[in-house]
């Protein structure tokens, strides 16, 4: 029982994470509009929303012209569950050519959709037209419901945060174990530490492959391509290649002692270079990942308290699962060593 508690914890955490990441609803937001280009005079557009309560009577829709200027629209009708028809009149002069949508009601809070429209007719700074004719004070109110924050383009896939991202944490945890084991092997030459490094790399590679594949799927349906030139992705791929090289190196040496020593040397050398790479890469290129290269970070309003309640347990749970599998692999190695080579480890 003493050795069991963390396995039970792992199971409980992962169960909690899975249940929570599927039952917490996604917050409300705007997905798109039926026409992106506006002309002067009267415009009627249909706004498509997601999970929003359009039927609420206090619903207001604004066009955000710039930081301080808003245009009220007239809500005509709710077309279906998540479509709303609005009407507004645009003057010839506008201070900006790209308009945002803001939607408001007490239940959903403020839903923001950046750069929804292009206003091609905009002739210059507006003169006498009264843009800020709405009660702007209601803008930026918080969503009161219990939900995961809505993000443009990402939508529901923000839940992948609990499944894809911890793969990397687990991989780095296991590669860390491999590094420490390799260092200890070089200092005391005990087979045990060699087996630990090997098992950690093997299981770490499984998580690396899972991270690459799930990341690829996620990227396809949010960024539009299976693979993009992104420092995170390149770093992940190089990590994969380096540890595959480590396995190949082990397989190409027959003598046990020699194999262990050389593999340990390579592992340390490779880890240091990998570290350099992961420090250097992000400085060199733009990243599509959140929090990098001007993208919104998950730690500000994105990783809000609801997400945090699930994300941290997810990371711990997956790391524990990785450690568990690593221990099974290690024990198997030990038994094989004992049985085939009659060597006590």
């Amino acid at each position, binding site marked *: 029982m003493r050795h069991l508690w963390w396995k039970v914890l792992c199971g409980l955490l992962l169960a909690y994470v899975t249940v929570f990441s599927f039952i917490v609803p996604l917050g409300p937001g705007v997905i798109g509009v039926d026409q992106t280009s506006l002309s002067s005079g009267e415009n009627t557009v249909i706004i498509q929303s997601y999970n929003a309560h359009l039927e609420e009577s206090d619903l207001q829709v604004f066009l955000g012209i710039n930081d301080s200027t808003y245009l009220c629209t007239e809500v005509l009708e709710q077309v279906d569950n998540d479509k709303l028809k609005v009407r507004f009149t645009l003057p010839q002069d506008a201070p900006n050519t790209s308009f945002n949508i803001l939607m408001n009601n007490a239940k959903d809070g403020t839903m923001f959709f950046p750069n929804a429209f292009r206003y091609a007719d905009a002739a210059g700074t507006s003169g006498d037209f009264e843009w800020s004719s709405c009660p702007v004070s209601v803008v930026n109110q918080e969503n009161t419901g219990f939900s995961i924050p809505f993000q443009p383009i990402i939508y529901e896939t923000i839940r992948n945060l609990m499944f894809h991202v911890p793969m990397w944490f687990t991989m780095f945890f296991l590669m860390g174990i491999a590094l420490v084991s390799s260092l200890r092997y070089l200092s005391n030459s005990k087979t045990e530490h060699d087996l630990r490094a090997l098992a950690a790399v093997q299981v770490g590679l499984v998580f690396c492959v*899972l991270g690459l594949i799930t990341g690829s799927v996620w990227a396809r349906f949010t960024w539009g391509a299976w693979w993009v030139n992104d420092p995170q992705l390149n770093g992940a791929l190089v990590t994969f290649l380096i540890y595959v090289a480590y396995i190949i190196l082990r397989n190409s040496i027959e003598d046990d002692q020699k194999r262990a020593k050389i593999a340990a040397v390579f592992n340390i050398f490779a880890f240091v270079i990998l570290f350099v790479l992961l420090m250097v890469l992000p400085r060199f290129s733009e990243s599509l990942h959140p929090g990098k290269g001007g993208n919104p970070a998950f730690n500000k309003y994105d990783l809000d308290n609801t997400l945090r309640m699930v994300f941290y347990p997810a990371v711990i749970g997956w790391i524990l699962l990785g450690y568990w*599998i690593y221990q099974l692999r290690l024990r198997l190695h030990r*038994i094989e060593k004992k049985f*085939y080579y009659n060597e006590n480890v």
Partner: protein
Amino acid sequence: MKTFKPFALLILCVALPFLASAQAADSVLEETFFSSGKMPVVLSVVVIILVGLLAYVAVLNKKVNKLENDIKK
């Protein structure tokens, strides 16, 4: 044979994006995965992880079987 497996894995991983992009042109794929707020993407990610870990457990299982047989002999 022993070094073959990592090589095969490597080739597979390099070839996968190309294979995938060859069929990616169909909008059916996008339509399916974009429906209901891109929820199918989350489901497929979860399924991939489950299948991957199960496959690894199966590999371990095979190794234990082999060891057991050898010990019996």
